[in-house]
Structure formats: structure tokens, C-alpha cells
């Protein structure tokens, strides 16, 4: 089994290739063109649709909308449940991120610093939430909480999201705890540090990037998650994805869907970029010799 965090993060620095420069440039131009169409066209269509003037509309065969306005944004904001959904999502996600981190840390610490029989199997078992289809989990989780008599939608979704995203947090924190250097711990203790001081000196610097990465990734996943929020939350607890679904599914309103799509995806992309910068700047901080 290949670990998710390892394969992406550890790219050994290599010298740039010196062969086939011209071929690479050509391939790159072709690919960049495809990718521009791949990403830029769909996103600009979404932006345009969110700005379509309801008076004139955007009908075939107009290539571009005849007039643009921000009225649609105002309308969606004032007449739909979107503000409530945003409030719900943005209350839920940070709570999920923090609770997941707290739940994940002891297990991650154990994986990183202890060897025991069945460790491989235990690590594999933490991936279980990733391999159960989301809607199966959602439907029978809702059935489970019903029979347990839990009626708080917020609490139910919180529980389900924590379990669903624990694999990511455990994986990231295992790597982080593995980077805590035993010699630093020993040195701090040798110099007479209290347990708290040992934690601050030896653990915190190595753990901080992992903690932030885990919080951000779980936050994003929770904002985006649809199956559980939709099935467990329905009908009175709405999140941003369930609002989007309502405009995509049985009641297709393209401009409204455009507005909600952008509200859902733009903050996440910004967070993702921030995360990447964070991970890059964190790398040189892991100074020290190996072995």
C-alpha cells in the first residue's frame, strides 16, 4: 500500500534534465493550451454565468452574455438560505478540523514512535473510511444515529466528518511525529528541561507544519463534503454543497449554481495555495542530519 502523504511530498531534488529540451518545450506548449481550455474556459464560464443580467439572460446563439450585473449575487444572498448554509459550513468545518486533530494525534504518535505486532494492519485499518462509498456511509450512519436517538444534526455531521477525515489527519501527523528528533528530546532532558519545555523545544517545531496542514486539509474536506451533509442534514441543516445540489439537481437554476459554485471553490483554492506555501517554507526548517 502506498501512503498518500509520502508519495506527493517527498520529491527528491534532481538536476534538471539536459536531454530532449526541444521536445519538452513543444509538449509543454501543447499541454498548457489543453490545460488552459481545461481549467480557464470552465471557470470563466462559471464567472460569466454568475454575472448574467436576469433581464436580458444569456441565450443561444449569443457567444457572451449581452449585459453583466452583480444583481444575481445580491439576489441569491438575500432570497435564499445561502447565508445560513455558509454559516453552518464555516462553523462545522473548523470544529471538525480541531476535533479530528485531537483524535488523530495519539494514534499518530503511537504509529510514529512505537513498534508493535500488527502495526501494519492497524495503519491499513485507519484507511477504512476512505474505502467505504460515501453514500453508503451517509445513509446507514443516519439510520444509526436515528436508532441511537441523537437528534442534533450538527453533532451528527460533526461525528461523521471526524471519522471520515481521520485517515488524512492520522497520516499527516504520523509523518510529523516521525520527524521529531530523539537527539533533541535527549538533549533537552539532559539540560534539565521540564516536560513542557521538552515539548516546546523538541516537538513543537517538527509538529507545527503537520498540525497546520492537517487542520487546513480537514477543513477543506469538510466544507466540500456532500453525501453526509446532504443525507444526515436534510432537510433543515443546509451546507454550501447541499445548496449547490439543490440548484443543480431537481431545480436547475444555472446562474444561482454559478454563484454558489464560486463561493464554494474560491476560498478553498486560496487555502490550498496557502497550504502549499506553508509546506514549502516548512521544509528547510527540518534541519539536521539523518540516521
Amino acid at each position, binding site marked *: 500500500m502506498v501512503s498518500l502523504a509520502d508519495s506527493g511530498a517527498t520529491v527528491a531534488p534532481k538536476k534538471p534534465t539536459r536531454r530532449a529540451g526541444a521536445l519538452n518545450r513543444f509538449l509543454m506548449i501543447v*499541454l498548457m493550451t489543453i490545460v488552459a481550455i*481545461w481549467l480557464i474556459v470552465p471557470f470563466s464560464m462559471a464567472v460569466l454565468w454568475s454575472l448574467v443580467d436576469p433581464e436580458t439572460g444569456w441565450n443561444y446563439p449569443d457567444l457572451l452574455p449581452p449585459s453583466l450585473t452583480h444583481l444575481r449575487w445580491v439576489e441569491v444572498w438575500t432570497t435564499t438560505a445561502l447565508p445560513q448554509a455558509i454559516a453552518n459550513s464555516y462553523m462545522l468545518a473548523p470544529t471538525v478540523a480541531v476535533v479530528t486533530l485531537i*483524535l488523530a494525534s495519539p494514534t499518530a504518535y503511537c504509529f510514529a514512535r512505537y513498534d508493535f505486532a500488527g502495526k501494519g494492519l492497524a495503519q491499513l485499518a485507519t484507511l477504512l473510511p476512505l474505502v467505504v462509498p460515501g453514500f453508503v456511509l451517509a445513509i446507514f450512519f443516519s439510520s444509526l444515529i436515528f436508532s441511537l436517538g441523537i437528534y442534533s444534526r450538527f453533532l451528527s455531521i460533526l461525528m461523521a466528518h471526524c471519522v471520515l477525515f481521520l485517515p488524512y489527519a492520522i497520516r499527516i501527523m504520523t509523518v510529523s511525529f516521525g520527524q521529531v528528533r530523539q537527539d533533541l528530546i535527549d538533549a533537552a532532558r539532559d539540560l534539565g528541561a521540564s516536560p513542557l519545555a521538552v515539548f516546546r523545544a523538541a516537538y513543537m517545531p517538527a509538529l507545527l507544519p503537520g498540525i497546520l496542514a492537517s487542520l487546513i486539509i480537514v477543513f*477543506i474536506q469538510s466544507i466540500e463534503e456532500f453525501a453526509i451533509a446532504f443525507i444526515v442534514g436534510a432537510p433543515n441543516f443546509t451546507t454550501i454543497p447541499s445548496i449547490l445540489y439543490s440548484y443543480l439537481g431537481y431545480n436547475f437554476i444555472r446562474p444561482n449554481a454559478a454563484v454558489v459554485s464560486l463561493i464554494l471553490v474560491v476560498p478553498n483554492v486560496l487555502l490550498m495555495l496557502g497550504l502549499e506555501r506553508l509546506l514549502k517554507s516548512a521544509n528547510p526548517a527540518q534541519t539536521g542530519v539523518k540516521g
Partner: protein
Amino acid sequence: MRWRRTLLILALLTPGLGVILLMIGSVFYVAVMQSFGYYNLVGEDSFSLEHWEKVLGSKQFSRSLSYSAYIAVVAAIGSVILAYPIAIWLRRPFRGSLAISAVLKAPLFVPGLVASFLFLNVIAFHGVVNQFLMWIGITDEPIRMQNDRGAWGVVFLQLWKNMPFALLLLTGAVQSISDEVLDAARDLGAGSFARFRKVIAPLTVQAMQAALIIIFIGAAGDFAFQVTAGPTNVQSMAQYMVFLKDSFGRWNQAAVVGVSLMILALFGSLILAFISSVVLKSGNKW
């Protein structure tokens, strides 16, 4: 001392692994029990095979099952086939390679529903693609790409969303092969295809299997893409399950579909992973 250490490890594992096992275990338990007539929201609990018989006997179920299996196989294999050459191309950094891999991986961070919406605009009946095709004169009238009977819209969305994931795993695996090992293969007379078949493929088989398994499971359980862009004459397993639950609260039948979907996800992905390793390892025998 030994038992204290064991206790400590168990205590550390409980909040993370313990919670996962408890929750997934009980959800699984509820699903299985409901499919056999227990945990009813209304009415008496009693063991019965009636729900299984009813669902397995319906034509809709077998259509759903084979449809979801088809989408999952195409998504998993297609993503891996598209991702392999790109991963090999991006193995060694060159100017711009980081930008390319960032752009290629962007769909990973686009939620499924948003991805659906973005492409619905593009492939709509009067969308950009159709207008472009008509403008350059390839077709006379718009082609139906959304909710098409061949499910091409869904397949396209699946590949768009999952190829980056396969790329992520395969890039890591391909990059961990040392330059000297590949140079050695060349030096010993292996051309590009032989290098792929005999060195790269066998050394990345685990990453490829991980990609196949996870993509297969995700695509088999797809709801969002199917509801927005899928054919209207067939339902995916997840869609069918939600439909059964929502119409007249047929929870027990929904449970049958849910359990079947889990079986499909588990065995389908394992079979796929097994076949792929057999195919790749045959590269070593001559």
C-alpha cells in the same frame, strides 16, 4: 512492564483507530442488519430474506450494478492509463514542470458538484463545445453530451477528477526509481517500451494498484456526477439507494443496495488490482 506497554499502545490507538473501527463497524452492521429486516424505523424487526429477493430480482438493480461497475472500471483504468505517460514525462524536473503538475492536479481540489457544474456549462446543448463544433462545421446541429445514453459525460467527469489522483500516486512512485537504474536498462539494450514494461511498471505496481482501488471505489459509489450529467435511463448504485430510501422509505431495500455496493467496491477493486499486477508482472517472463 509488557502489559503496561500494551495498555499504553491500546490507549493511544483508541481515539483514532478505535473511533474509526467503532463507527465504520457499526455502520456496516446496521446496513447488513437492515438488509435482513432489522433496525426498522417502523414495524417489527424480524429476520427475512424478502428484501434481498425483491431487490436482486428487479431489473433495475442489475442494470444499476452493471452500470456502476462499468463506470468504475473505465474511470480506474482510464485514469491510470492517462496518468502513466504524464508521470514518466514529469519524472525529472525541467523548466515549467512544476507549473504543469500543479495545473494538472488542480481538479483534485475542485469538489465533485462544482466540477459537474463547470463542465455542464461547457458541454451543454448550447454550450461552448457544441457552438465551436458547429462553427467549424464538424456538425450541423448540437450533440447531446449531458445526460447522454452512453454516459460519456460521466466518464469524462470521472477522468477529469480522478486522473490527477492517479498522477499524484504514480509521480511519487516513478520519481523514486533512480536515474541509474533506468540508465542501466538502456545500457543493457532496453528501448523506451521495454524500459516501461520491465523496469518502471514492475517497480510502480503498488502505487498503481492503490490508485486503481481508490478510484474504483470512488467511481462505483458516485452520486454527484451521475445525478447531474449521467444518463436518465439508468441509475448508479448510490443514486438507486438514495431513491429507494427517499421513495416510501424503503430502508431495507436501500440497505440491500448499500451492502451490494460495498461488495462491488471491495471485490471489484481487488479483482482489478489483481489482474493489473498479473498483467504487469507478465512483463518479467519472456
